[in-house]
Every structure is written in structure tokens, then in C-alpha cells.
């Protein structure tokens, strides 16, 4: 039995999958870039980066507003309603900004020479650009000139006009630009797939992994978070999901109710979060936070 089992183990080892090429490329880029010493930057740029980072935080509802008081800078905690875009999710190496009117957002990566500008407007029936689903894909963009590409689409109720400027079309820059486009979020409806029996449990696992990086408060508050899930018409907020995106999407959505124990000591309502999660052809996505 032992020899037989060892043979089976070794055969299984030979059948293990390989990493996806896209994951390998992304990891390679991060490794090579991360190991290369960053050039020294003037202090003025660092201050600008800090201001931009704070602006991003406010755009995504973490909520910090800068106020100037004499020579001192004051950081004011401010709760914002906006935490599902439109805009770019924060990511290491990127400076992202959104204006408070939620009509424009920018993502810039100085070391790779990339700048992505996005304009958002309410879509109209007249002169509507082609419809698209998130994530947006760099390959769908048209070339305006040697260094600029444009992607003008309608995502749900939003007219999204994106311009991608690449100083150089190196592999690293293209990979990074592709990834950053994937972090462009717009309140939208997912192309949800039908749910299967085990999906609520998978959705919970996905959401709890996703939460610390996307939670709009102090990430430490997500420690020991627990969650329960209900799918389709069994979900308490099925009606809300249907109102947002129609009955088909609502029936294919898992409602995940999260409890943050740390905040429960302070406020029951603050400690309870509800998200709508769905499976799409490119994986699971958190498509809205229920309110």
C-alpha cells in the first residue's frame, strides 16, 4: 500500500498545474521593479504624493480631507459616501486621484511612465458609446498616437472616456497599465453567471480576502471579521440588488453580510457591512456595497 501510495503521490505531483502566464508576468514585473533601487526623489514630490494619496483615500470613502492651518497641515477624518468609484482603487506604485464630483480620475505610475486619465459622465441614450463590462481591457483601446490610447465606452449608467498615456510600450508598462485598468471601478452591473450550490461559501471566502485591501476604514478593523451569505431570492436585500441591476443579476448575486468584531464594541451599525458578490467569466467580483 505504501509503495502504491507513494507512486500515486509522485504521479499526482507530475500533474500539478503551472501558474498562469499573466500571474507570472505580473509577479516578474513586481520582483524586478521591487528589487531595483528607486531613484531619490525631491522632497517636494514626496509631499505631492502624500497629498495625492490623501485625495485618493477621500475619493474612496476612507475619508480624509486636508486643511491648511498656517504652516501646519491638518488631516481631518471625513466620511464619504463614495466607495465604489468611479475611480481607481489604490495600488502600490500608483498615484491615484479622483475629484469629489466624481467626474474625473487619474492614475499615474512615474517609474513606469504611465498616466491614465478617466472622465465619467452620466450616459445618455443619444450618442452613446459601445457598452462594456468591467474590467476594462487595454487591448480594446484604440491608438490615438504613438503614446496614447483611448477607450470610450458605456458601463451601466456611466459614459467612461479613458486615455492611457505610455512613455514607452515596454512589457512591464503594458502589464502594469493592464492591471491598473482592472482597478478602474464604476458603479456597474456585473455579467453574473448562474450560481451553484457551494457558491455562497466561496463568495464569503472571496469577500473576506478582498475586504482588508478594499475596506474604506482602518484595515485593522477587519481583523477577525466573520461573514454569512445568502444567495439570490433568499438574500434579505434581494430587492435592492434587483433595483440596482435587474432581477437576473440579483438572482445570480450572493449577499455577504460581514461583521467586524472590533467595531461592534463601538457601534453595531458600523460593524455590519453588506456586499453584493457575483461570479463572472473573469472570476468573482464585489459589485456593490448595499446601503
Amino acid at each position, binding site marked *: *500500500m*505504501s509503495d502504491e*501510495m*507513494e507512486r*500515486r*503521490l*509522485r*504521479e*499526482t*505531483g507530475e*500533474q*500539478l*498545474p*503551472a*501558474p*498562469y502566464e499573466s*500571474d*507570472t508576468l505580473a*509577479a*516578474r514585473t*513586481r*520582483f*524586478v521593479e*521591487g*528589487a*531595483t*533601487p528607486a531613484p531619490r526623489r525631491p522632497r517636494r514630490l514626496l509631499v505631492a504624493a502624500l497629498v495625492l494619496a490623501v485625495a485618493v483615500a477621500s475619493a474612496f470613502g476612507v475619508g480624509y480631507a486636508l486643511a491648511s492651518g498656517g504652516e501646519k497641515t491638518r488631516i481631518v477624518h471625513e466620511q464619504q459616501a463614495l466607495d465604489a468609484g468611479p475611480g481607481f482603487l489604490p495600488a502600490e506604485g500608483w498615484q491615484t486621484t479622483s475629484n469629489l464630483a466624481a467626474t474625473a480620475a487619474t492614475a499615474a505610475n512615474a517609474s513606469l511612465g504611465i498616466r491614465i486619465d478617466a472622465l465619467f459622465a452620466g450616459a445618455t441614450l443619444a450618442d452613446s458609446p459601445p457598452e462594456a463590462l468591467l474590467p476594462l481591457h487595454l487591448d480594446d483601446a484604440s491608438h490615438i498616437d504613438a503614446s496614447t490610447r483611448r477607450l470610450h465606452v458605456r458601463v451601466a449608467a456611466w459614459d467612461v472616456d479613458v486615455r492611457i498615456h505610455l512613455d514607452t510600450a515596454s512589457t512591464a508598462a503594458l502589464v502594469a497599465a493592464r492591471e491598473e485598468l482592472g482597478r478602474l471601478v464604476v458603479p456597474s452591473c456585473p455579467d453574473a453567471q448562474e450560481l451553484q450550490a457551494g457558491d455562497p*461559501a466561496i463568495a*464569503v*471566502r472571496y469577500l*473576506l*480576502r478582498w475586504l482588508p485591501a478594499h475596506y474604506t476604514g482602518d484595515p485593522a478593523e477587519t481583523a*477577525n*471579521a*466573520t*461573514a*454569512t451569505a445568502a444567495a439570490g431570492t433568499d438574500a434579505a436585500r434581494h430587492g435592492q440588488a434587483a433595483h440596482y441591476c435587474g432581477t437576473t443579476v440579483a438572482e445570480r448575486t450572493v449577499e455577504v453580510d460581514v461583521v467586524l468584531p472590533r467595531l461592534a464594541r463601538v457601534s453595531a451599525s458600523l460593524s455590519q457591512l453588506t456586499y453584493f458578490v457575483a461570479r463572472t467569466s473573469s472570476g468573482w467580483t464585489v459589485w456593490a456595497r448595499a446601503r
Partner: protein
Amino acid sequence: METDADLVLAARRGSRDALGQIFDRHWPRVWRAAYSTTGERELANDAAQDAFLRAASALDRFDHRRPLEPWLVRIATNRAIDLVRARRRLVSEELADERFAFDDPLPDDELREALARLGPERRAVIALHYWLDYTTPEIADVLDLPLGTVNSRLARALGDLRQQLEARNV
């Protein structure tokens, strides 16, 4: 072909090409070590990438005379075990008991299910020994464990697997 030591020394001097070669040479096996432990691509990506990023930040301190892969595999495997444990802590009690499962199907379904019932520590030892061909002293070095602990962990893992497979065939 340049040795790992050559590449590490070149990388320290700022060679991006050397860094790329280090990555290309070791990423597949380091990722495999992580995936064998987590069973999930996403967690494996995190663990393997973390190993390389930590390595990048510690290249100056790394003794280039030592083999590079065990160092990377050590970081990735330990990180993978931590991630699996953290996930268990994060999910609700109801889901904490849910079994591990590989994202990708394996041809030997019985064995896959038996492996799923092992804890990440025992699964890591199995993976290192049978799938990455490490000897038990090498595993002891990689996981920073006494050789006796590795031997007993491996024996118990095999015992568990044997028991489960026999139970299925009764």
C-alpha cells in the same frame, strides 16, 4: 549558464537582467510549493510573490554561496501556511471546517480528497518530499524544523493518507 551565485552578485550590482533570470529560473517551483500548500491559485500567487519580494529586499544580506531555491521555497511555504491559517481565522466558524480543495482538478480524485483532509503543515511536507523531490534533511532545513519533527510529520501524513484511502476502498 550562470550560477545562482553569479546572478545574485549581478543583481546586487543592479542588473535587472540577472533579477529576471533569477525569477525565471525559480518561480515555477516556488509557485508549485505554494500552490501545493494552499490549493488556491490566488493564495499561491500571494505566497510565491511574497517570497520573491522579500528575497529582493534581502539580496544584500543573502549568503550567495548558499543555494537560492530552498531559501525562496522556505519563505513561500511558510507564507502559504500562514495564509491558510489566516483564512481559517477569517471565515466564520461554520466555514472554518470546510475542507481544503485544489482550484484545479487532479487526475487522482481519491488522493486529492485525502490530501484535502491534511493540515497545511503536513501537506507542505508531502509536497516538498514527493513533488519537489527534497530529502527529509533538506525539508528540515527549508522549514527550519528538527529532522525528527520532519520525519514524524511525514510519517503521520502518510499514515493519514493511507488510512483514508483504505477506508474509501473498504
